[in-house]
């Protein structure tokens, strides 16, 4: 006798309880605190803030804990939470020229005014597992120096003064907001940059990498990469002026790209731009390369048919929350659709068999 | 007599480089016009502008529409222009890949224009497709094969069938024999000549091959650096070229 499967509700409840237990792991091992995650897994926290589009290290750390370290799941938690937050207004554009840089390097010049600052980077570490980390203990204190004050000039501005690099037109237009308006193509650069900055790091990285391997090559140099804190200011109508409401850490990358020039314009360098929440330099550099590749039309380049040149392709597939949801939804029951496919295949096979019989009989 | 197509001062610039400049001519029903010139002479630019693939900077392109007589296709609304493009007009690309759906069967390729204008009887669509495959000398048993499995010459013949199935009044052809072997070219030209006569087609053919226009075109326009330098009846222009460039073009062919 057949009894239809029931009890989906109980199954879900049980799965949730089990999940909570697995998340905690072996209870004889001390539980991670959110503060520990925030402080000691800070690059994971940065990625969750960047792709979650919400700058809050504590919430990002909580999301990572709740997601058992699955960063896409953590980003998802942050995004869903972000939906419920009221929007009080928007900040003034941040001025990265006033950034208090922890790191600032240029690959295009040996030295630059303001200096090259290596900062806390993995770049020149030897990737050898450090078994000393298995034991607990404090690392030796790093040397300190006086913080630099004042503006840090942008490397690309030096090129701009000589007319060697294309100027970017300034605009006071309010940029579109992809979280409050449906995406429509062609999207234009402000929307493209928004989509890229919250896009999946792996996807943006691979797209950027593909341009380096010849699929829409644009000959990039890292003109400048800077990471540090910038002040966020907001105009308060009651006061009549902008006040500082906090600061955020940003990674900014400007690439300098070759440009052959055209009949009407002399040869000039062009730029790609990346700006991402937190210390996320792989993402910022990748973003700059992809931004530059997407600008082919505006810069009068050929469409080589490369994936990274295709705005609709890149923007429609860069969001990992959309991607993971749609990918994983094929786990949901599809038996109604499958049943109709089953009926159709049976019918087609039956017809074919009948036709074969008919032929044999004739 | 009303011209089928009346072109006035069509000009297209690429930056400060001339694509084509101040081209004017009339094409009458049943007439085949050849446009010749070397590559870069502006003939393909002109064809694309006439067919509405891109907008010229200046000029008018009047087409004798069935309903309202002469209308400027450049100022027409896009739906009307696209409607023309899939009914009264046809465009044969040099590369059949640009004019065919490579992943759709030969029958589907020929049937698409019929379905686009409302044909909804599978049997009728298939019969018409079979008939047209025959007219372009493709065996009826290839109807369910995809163009990928066809030779270059067959692909080009399929493209022609796909374009002519709705009985267009004006056919644009961009180097229809380009990229084919000489023997295949001869067969295709023969086929085209037969179809043009039989259907009384009006056509504009862009080519750098004078043999093509000699066989197909009633009239000829010679283009150089975006300008029309000479025009007239085909035999007249080819046998007694007046402009120095035409003379060079004709003599260079004869030398080959």
């Amino acid at each position, binding site marked *: 006798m057949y009894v239809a499967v029931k009890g989906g*509700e109980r199954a879900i409840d049980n799965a949730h309880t089990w999940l909570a237990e697995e998340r905690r792991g072996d209870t004889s091992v001390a539980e991670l605190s959110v503060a520990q995650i925030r402080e000691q897994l800070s690059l994971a926290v940065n990625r969750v803030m960047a792709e979650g589009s919400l700058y809050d290290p504590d919430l990002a750390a909580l999301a990572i804990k709740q997601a058992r370290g699955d960063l896409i799941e953590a980003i*998802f938690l942050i995004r869903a939470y972000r939906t419920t937050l009221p929007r009080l207004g928007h900040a003034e554009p941040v001025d990265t020229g006033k950034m208090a840089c922890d790191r600032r390097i240029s690959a295009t010049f040996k030295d630059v005014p303001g200096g090259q600052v290596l900062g806390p980077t993995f770049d020149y570490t030897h990737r050898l597992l450090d078994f000393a980390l298995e034991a607990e203990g404090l690392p030796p204190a790093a040397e300190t120096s006086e913080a630099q004050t004042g503006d840090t000039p942008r490397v690309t501005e030096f090129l701009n003064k000589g007319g060697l690099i294309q100027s970017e037109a300034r605009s006071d237009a309010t940029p579109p907001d992809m979280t*409050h308006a449906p995406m429509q*193509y062609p999207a234009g650069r402000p929307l493209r940059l928004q989509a890229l900055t919250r896009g999946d790091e792996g996807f943006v990285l691979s797209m950027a990498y593909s341009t380096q391997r010849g699929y829409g090559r644009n000959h990039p140099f890292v003109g400048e990469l800077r990471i540090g804190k910038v002040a966020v200011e907001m105009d308060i109508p009651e006061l009549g002026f902008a006040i500082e409401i906090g600061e955020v850490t940003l990674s900014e990358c400007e690439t300098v790209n070759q440009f052959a020039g055209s009949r009407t314009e002399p040869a000039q360098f062009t730029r790609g731009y990346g700006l991402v929440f937190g210390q996320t330099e792989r993402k910022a550099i990748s973003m700059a390369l992809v931004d530059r590749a997407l600008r082919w039309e505006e810069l009068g380049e050929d469409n080589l048919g490369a994936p990274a040149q295709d705005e*609709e392709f890149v923007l429609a597939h860069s969001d990992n929350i959309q991607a993971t949801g749609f990918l994983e939804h094929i786990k949901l029951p599809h038996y*109604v659709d499958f*049943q109709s496919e089953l009926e159709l295949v049976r019918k087609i096979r039956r017809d074919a068999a009948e036709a074969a019989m008919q032929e044999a009989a004739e | 007599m009303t011209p089928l197509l009346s072109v006035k001062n069509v000009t297209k610039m690429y930056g400060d480089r001339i694509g084509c400049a101040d081209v004017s001519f009339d094409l009458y029903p049943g007439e085949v016009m050849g446009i010749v010139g070397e590559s870069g002479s502006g003939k393909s630019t002109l064809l694309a502008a006439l067919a509405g693939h891109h907008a010229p900077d200046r000029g008018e392109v009047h087409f004798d529409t069935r309903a309202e007589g002469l209308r400027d296709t450049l100022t027409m609304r896009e739906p009307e222009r696209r409607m023309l493009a899939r009914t009264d007009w046809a465009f044969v690309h040099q590369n059949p890949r640009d004019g065919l759906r490579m992943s759709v069967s030969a029958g589907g390729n020929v*049937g698409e224009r019929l379905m686009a204008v409302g044909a909804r009887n599978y049997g009728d669509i298939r019969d018409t497709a079979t008939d047209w495959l025959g007219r372009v000398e493709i065996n009826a048993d290839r109807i369910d094969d995809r163009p990928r499995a066809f030779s270059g010459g067959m692909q080009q013949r399929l493209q022609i069938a796909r374009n002519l199935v709705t009985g267009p009044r004006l056919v644009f052809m961009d180097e229809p024999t380009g990229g084919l072997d000489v023997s295949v070219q001869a067969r295709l030209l023969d086929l085209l000549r037969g179809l043009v006569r039989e259907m009384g087609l009006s056509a504009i053919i862009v080519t750098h091959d004078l043999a093509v226009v000699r066989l197909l075109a009633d009239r000829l326009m010679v283009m150089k650096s975006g300008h029309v330098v000479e025009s007239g009846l085909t035999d007249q222009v080819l046998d007694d070229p007046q402009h120095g460039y035409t003379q060079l073009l004709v003599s260079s062919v004869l030398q080959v």
Partner: protein
Amino acid sequence: MTDQTGATTSDYNFAYLDEQTKRMIRRALLKAVAIPGYQVPFASREMPMPYGWGTGGVQVSAACLTPDDTFKVIDQGADDTTNAVSIRKFFEKTADVETTEHTQDATIIQTRHRIPEAPLTEDQILVYQVPIPEPLRFLEPRETETRKMHALEEYGLMHVKLYEDIARHGHIATSYAYPVKVEGRYVMDPSPIPKFDNPKLEMAAIQLFGAGREQRIYAIPPYTQVVSLDFEDHPFDPSKADAPCDLCGADHTYLDEVIIDDAGGRMFVCSDTDYCAGRQAQGHRGRLSPEAAE
């Protein structure tokens, strides 16, 4: 009321979304109803369930629900499939509305992949979850191009696909998400319902379609003409398994095929669980009904 994460009902607005967002969705819904079958772009929000799991339907339901509504959720026709349970619980928690498994008692029914067997009334709203709203998507991947094709009513390519099916298989080989033309104008994807359900798309209830990831909303107002695409000589055929339900004996319902033993034994049961239970309660019996089997 709290769940396993400790969140309480009062942490969120009624039906989760804030009022501004609901207004935005309602505007899109009004436009959709005014232009039947047209896909209205809307600023879909990130919901606490994954894209592809009904975020579009959930947002539409959230924008339609009032505290007086009675809500029903089905997935594959069943109220007790896991995702249906999950969405029902979501609204029990965030909107505190009454829920039901009885089609007749519901004022709003959210569905994935089925239309209930019992005819719906003018007092009901049917909300569909839609994965890919664009019926032309797999013929033309580019949004800029498909929007133009809809605008200019260039639907020839759609029939090329059906032509190819018949040329290859002898039949139109689309068995679900079967494209329809709405009120003689827009070609529409009815979401992945089996083609058996297509004739029911002409109904008394208002039908709203939400695609969250793709940011589109569309609608079929009550009593709107909905025609499944076909050829004159290959007419649309809303076929189903050629068998009656083994539990309630119905021969007019869409059936699930269930494998019941290792020897390839199969049985057919109504996919609409509420409808099947209702018939059984009225005394209808099938081949494998408890009494009959004994």
